[in-house]
């Protein structure tokens, strides 16, 4: 049995980049840039939401109880070694054999594995290295353990956690386009079609879209980090930055 992939509307080969971008039907309709972008953003947002819900509480609890020190090192080593394309490629047949189709499970699980490590790691490190003075002070004031975790450790860690989320989100958005090569669509479809039809305009135009969305994600979440935090946390973030010597 052979899989018949959806037919692609052929784009004239001699069309210029500007002309392609300014045509109305490039943007709207099925397979248009807008619906592809929504497709990509929805998937990435879902993956990010799930990873935050899993990684932040887990890392915070482990760090609060000083457990799983090894898990942090382990995450660091595994996290950067995950070949997302290979993982997704491995999951597609498994998903199809079990009747779950091409999408969304294989790509979502592969992206989840990409997003979890940086979020887990920053949360763990930030909570684990909370100023012990602040924790002692909170305990002395009669905070329950739960309050210490939520209102002291997590509150102080929020700046670093957000930067972990930003790194993960940029990686997810930048990697999601491989989905177009694994039986899906999304914003990566134009590069795929460009390669398939040997159409340079589509290749370059699609690349601009994919890179642009990744850059926008980084900028938007960077802005949240910089301006969205409460004044106290923002100030603390600057102190943490100077202390770790990190340049942003």
């Amino acid at each position, binding site marked *: 049995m052979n899989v018949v992939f959806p037919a692609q509307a052929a784009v004239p080969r001699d069309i210029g980049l500007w002309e392609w971008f300014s045509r109305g039907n490039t943007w709207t309709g099925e397979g248009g840039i807008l619906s592809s972008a929504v497709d990509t953003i929805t998937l990435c947002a879902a993956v990010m939401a799930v990873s935050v819900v899993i990684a932040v509480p887990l890392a915070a609890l482990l760090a609060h109880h000083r457990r799983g020190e090894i898990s942090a090192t382990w995450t660091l080593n595994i996290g950067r070694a995950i070949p997302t394309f290979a993982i997704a490629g491995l999951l597609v047949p498994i998903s199809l*054999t079990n*009747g779950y189709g091409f999408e969304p499970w294989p790509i979502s699980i592969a992206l989840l594995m990409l997003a979890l490590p940086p979020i887990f790691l920053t949360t763990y490190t930030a909570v684990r290295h909370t100023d012990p003075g602040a924790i002692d002070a909170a305990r002395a004031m009669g905070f329950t353990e739960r309050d210490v975790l939520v209102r002291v450790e997590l509150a102080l860690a929020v700046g670093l956690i957000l930067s972990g989320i930003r790194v993960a989100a940029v990686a997810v958005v*930048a*990697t999601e386009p491989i989905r177009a090569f694994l039986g899906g669509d999304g914003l990566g479809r134009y590069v795929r079609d460009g390669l398939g039809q040997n159409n340079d305009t589509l290749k370059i135009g699609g690349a601009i879209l994919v890179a642009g969305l990744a850059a926008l994600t980084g900028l938007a979440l960077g802005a949240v980090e910089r301006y969205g935090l409460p004044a106290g946390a923002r100030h603390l973030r600057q102190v943490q930055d100077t202390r770790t010597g990190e340049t942003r």
Partner: protein
Amino acid sequence: MISLLPLQTSEPLIRWNYIGDQWDDIQRKLIDHIELTLISVALGLILSTTLAAIALRYHWTSGPITTISAVIYTIPSVALFGILVPYTGLSKTPAVIALTGYTFLVLVTAIISGFRSVPRAVREAADGMGLSARRRVMSVELPLALPYIMTGIRVATVTTVGLVTVASIIGQGGLGDLILDGLRRTYWTPMIVGAVLSVALALVLDLGLWLLGRAITPWARRARVR
């Protein structure tokens, strides 16, 4: 045009006889994969050493050099291949350019922090003993920076192994070609073989480089015990 993606297929996940029958092809793809990884990391190492040397020598350049490497690193690989292919054609060139570019961030930062970790006292002692600048760098600073650099090379290599798989979208991907080929033909065995081998290759190279790092910096272990 009928355009239906199936939810389920009856093709088994693995047909063992494929591995034996196609062994030569698998082997060639594996060697291609290793070759592309090594070329890119080696080129990346040469260029990153140059960049890091500039950054260490002229301090004001270290900000821009790290920033530019970081920007390159965040460019989606699919986008980078899409942009490069029209200019280079479907060859190894765009793959090597992109993969080399991705190693900069990790390698440059590793080399810079390695050399910055050398205590000033050590450098002054070397100068005091009358070592030439060249010998001071080669026989005092480099060995001390080596653990950092080796970690950088490990990370860069493992990341590159993963990205080479993506390079299959422009037909240069070594094991990734097996994945795409299997997908096109609804033949799962090559997909599984390609994916499993590229994960295994990443792990093997990581372990190998870790052992190599331990072997060439025995003093780093002793220092940690203290």
